[in-house]
């Protein structure tokens, strides 16, 4: 009896010593095999139990089973330890310099002019305006005569035009001809509520003028439309585009195709309305021209000024973009320096921060 258990003690001591010095998985495997394998020392001892008398067999069986369980647990623990050590050594070898730059995703971006144009389009779409279009090379009738600018009219000088080698055609000097086209398409139906964005041309090139630029034209016709509606609509639009805190004012102006004509100013963004060089110390900058549609223009679109009235407005996308993005040079927008354009990725497309 005594001898048997002291044998177990020696076995355990020897097993534990070997396990402690096992440094890798094969050593563990071989130890497991040596004791617990088919011909392992403990397996053999358990097979030999059969030769013992029943009394001893039961007791000895319990002792050997306990020993076996201890060995399995010890082997499992050691194996997990070695797993962790091995993995640590392996991952240590895979270390990267994580301070190196990341690989940026490849992204593109819409041009700021497209974004500014869509911004105003989206606001006016929500206000119920539908988009209409017309050709960039326009007939003189649509560009001038239909808009109450007959030959010899001083306004033809105001909008110095590019002509082409096709007779009676001109690069449109404004998006206003789309007013006529849209009215004709409506064929007298009411209300008319259209928005016409597009490229226009003036024979002018300096720091504040570019021979090609973009405009957005708006037109509303219905029964009983007045200057009050124009003021309300444009103020709402401009607050939606530029922010609630923007103040507006209206000034009398002149366009051949509207009567009365007004211009709308908004608070100067550069100084917030205090007065600076940008706004010539007035605190205001002009944002758009507008007015009540001239009776002649209504008639040319097929509407009777004694029955309906309407207002129209036009604003420059470049000027709006300069305001939205805080630009001071219009020409940069057409230079397409990609490094310059990359800055616009920070503009989230909502209101300016």
């Amino acid at each position, binding site marked *: 009896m005594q001898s048997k258990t002291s044998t177990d003690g020696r076995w355990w001591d020897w097993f534990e010593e070997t396990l402690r010095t096992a440094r890798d998985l094969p050593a563990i495997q071989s130890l497991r095999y040596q004791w617990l394998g088919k011909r392992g020392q403990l397996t053999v001892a358990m097979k030999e139990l059969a030769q013992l008398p029943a009394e001893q067999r039961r007791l000895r069986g319990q002792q050997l089973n306990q020993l076996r369980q201890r060995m399995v647990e010890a082997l499992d623990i050691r194996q997990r330890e070695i797993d962790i050590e091995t993995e640590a050594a392996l991952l240590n070898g895979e270390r990267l310099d994580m301070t*190196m*730059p990341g*690989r940026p995703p490849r*992204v*593109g*971006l*819409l*041009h700021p002019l*497209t974004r500014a144009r869509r911004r105003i*389009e989206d606001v006016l*779409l929500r206000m*119920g305006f*539908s*988009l209409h*279009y017309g*050709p*960039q*090379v326009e007939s003189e009738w649509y560009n001038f005569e239909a808009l109450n600018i007959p030959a*010899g009219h*001083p306004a033809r000088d*105001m909008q110095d035009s*590019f*002509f*082409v*080698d*096709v*007779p009676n*055609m001109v*690069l449109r000097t404004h998006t206003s001809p789309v007013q006529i086209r849209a009215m004709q398409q409506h064929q007298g139906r009411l209300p008319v*509520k259209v928005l016409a964005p597009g*490229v226009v041309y003036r024979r002018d*090139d300096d720091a504040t003028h570019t*021979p*090609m630029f973009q405009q957005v034209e708006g037109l*509303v016709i219905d029964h009983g*439309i*007045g*200057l*009050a*509606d124009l*003021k*309300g609509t444009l103020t709402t639009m401009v607050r939606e585009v530029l922010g609630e805190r923007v103040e507006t004012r*209206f*000034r*009398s*102006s*002149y366009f*051949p195709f509207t*009567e*009365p*004509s*007004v211009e709308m100013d908004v608070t100067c963004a550069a100084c917030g309305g205090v007065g600076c060089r940008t706004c010539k110390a007035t605190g205001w900058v002009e944002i758009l021209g507008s007015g009540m549609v*001239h*009776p002649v223009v209504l008639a040319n679109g097929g509407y009777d000024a004694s029955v309906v*009235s309407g207002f129209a407005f036009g604003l420059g996308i470049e000027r709006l973009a300069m305001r939205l993005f805080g630009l001071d040079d219009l020409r940069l927008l*057409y230079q*397409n320096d*990609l*490094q310059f*354009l990359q800055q616009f990725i920070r503009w989230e497309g909502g209101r300016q921060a």
Partner: protein
Amino acid sequence: MKLSHRWLSRYVPDLPSPERVAVVLQQLGIEVAAMEPWGERLRAIELVEVVRRDPHPRADRLYLVSVRRGSGEVLSVVTGASNGFPGDRLWYGPAGTVLADGHVLGVRDFRGVTSPGMLLSPEEAGFSAEPGDLWVWRQADAVGSTLLDVLRGPDWVYDLELTPNLAIYYQSVRNIAHDAAAVAGWTMNDDREPFPFGQSTGLLRVESRADCPLYGLVALDLVPGAVTPLWMQALLRATGQRPIHPAVDVTNFVLWDCGQPLHAFDRDRVVLPIAVRRALPGESLTLLDGTVAALTSADLVIADGHGPIALAGVMGGAESAIRPDTTRILLESAHFSAPVVFRTLRARQLPTDAALHFGKGTDAVMAAAAPARVLAVMAADGLLAGVGDSAILGEVPRQRVIPFEPETIRTLLGVAWSDERVSLALERLGFGVARDLVTIPSWRHDVEGSADLAEEVARYYGLDTILPRLPRMAASPGKREPEQEFLERLRDLWAQAGYWEVATRTFSSEERERTLNRPTGRQPLQLANPLRNEESRLRTDLLTSLLEVFQFNRSRRDRPIAMFEVASVFAREGERVVESVELAVVESLDPVEQFPHGPRPSIYDLKGALEWVAAQLGWELSLSVPAQIPAFLHPGRSLAIAFTHDPQGGGGWLGELRPRTAQGFQGRRVAVLTMRADRPASPRPRGVMAHPSRFPEIVRDLSLVVPEPVTFDEVQTRIGRTGSADLRQTRLIDRFEGDFGVSLTVRLTFQSDAETLTDQAVEEEVAHILSELAGVGVVLRQ
């Protein structure tokens, strides 16, 4: 137009501050672009009295003139002037004085004699006066007065920007004063009494009454040696005009004062009677500016017994012009037809002040009244020696009358003002309102109907009094046209695919488009009046515009470029202009030097982007390698693009630029895409999204030896021809070359919606595919 505050105050004696006046002008719709003080320069110029005049000790033609200043100080100034004797009072500019020409006076040494500043001539001070080197002052002002004191202090000058409608009647201090006084409630002096013309027969005849409804002449004589009064010189100077001769200056003054151009002839150089008529064939006239005008019957002229002496309302002739010593004047005051004058102004490019007034339409009442103003001004300042014969032909046209429609005016403004409130505004601005008619003031040729009257009412009360509101109308959602919706989506997709949108101008030139030398088949639309040669046509090709942007960026820095634009190109077909929308994409293919390394740029990136964009849009494109590749493209790395719905319609090209062409734009390897941006012929079918299959996928990789010239496209077509319903995907996963030629590894993915596929079923499909491929000599690599 420049407006003098002092001039305006001649009409409104209690004129408030310039700031307040500017606000009122703004309400009238007059833009005040700038406001500047005038005359500060004259504060330094001081009246002094000569006490001694001695010759310069060392210079023959110089004198030392001792003058007493207002402070009592006597100082000695060197002058070369022949006048300036003891007792004379002269204008002295101390060192620091700025002369009329901008010259700044200093302390100078004249042969050993120091001279602080100068004694001034009228021209140096900026005025004209009686003849003489130095300006001898004969008024009673005290020694020590400054020139600015004499003018009663500095003036303010408003720089006005008049819109064309306002220019019809606001090129007149009187008319501005009239409306400003009305709006602001100021009291105004106004006098429009007609001049009592005589009945002198034989003085003139008017042959073209339609061209000239009213023509008056007054003979008058000036006091010999008369000088334009200083106050008038100051007003003319302040508003940017140069005093010339009293007769001319007074007519100029009256022109701007009440908007009525006048002309002064030298009476000794005209042969009466004067005729107003169209020019006869062959007549010509030497104008004041020295040019000779060959006249036509379109020109209205003033003629004397010998022939034309002036282009009516535009410019006088040189022969009958006022000379420095002219005193016998024949003054013309007329009302010409605006279109007639405008036509001559335009045709002859003579935008004189007179033509710019007459050409826009003048106030006929003023034509009859202006001579009275001339004579009053001349008499008051002692210039007038006498008035001779006078006559006037024609009548002041009747004032126009239009209906008074207060309801229309209220609608146009969106207000609920009473009829009385509406008519009050009109009456204050000079309109007559009687029952249902409005009489238009004689100076308001711009007013035609109720819309114009509505503007007057708005100007009178101010736009701020109209309260904003939103239109009440049937609400309907706004929408974009499908064509534009499509183009916006096209832009969004390319931006999502990693390309930067650019915005180029549509101008180009033959030379610019030759760099790419891409045959578009479009006949260019030429500009008749380009700003410059490089912008002499509208582009026929969008790709060139983008490559120019590429070049611009390359000239600044060497960085990867990937950009696109969706924009119009133009062509002419006979007398028709064709505008079509194109898509162009440009991408640099140079290896990107960066660590950690990214994927190597390849033409397949652009092809993949196009395929992805096309799939999103429902574009059905056929991409093929045609036998003929245009010269601007790499012959081995390009594809023709066609729309399957319109294969003959021309689609576009995708490929690498031929390196030689790329060099023209500072590029090496450049991928380009140029194509029509047509909307898909039929909208994409809106299907139901399929559920994912519950059954497992089976994957087979086939390494195929592909003999020349079989392409991947053919391999894919052959695989597709088997019509296997369970073949879900064919994906190229590798390509390499060995002694067997080119090998492509294709990964086939099989999956069924109905059952778990067996190996045997898949093997049968693979065998079928291999037998199809064998038809073009493609075999499994062993």
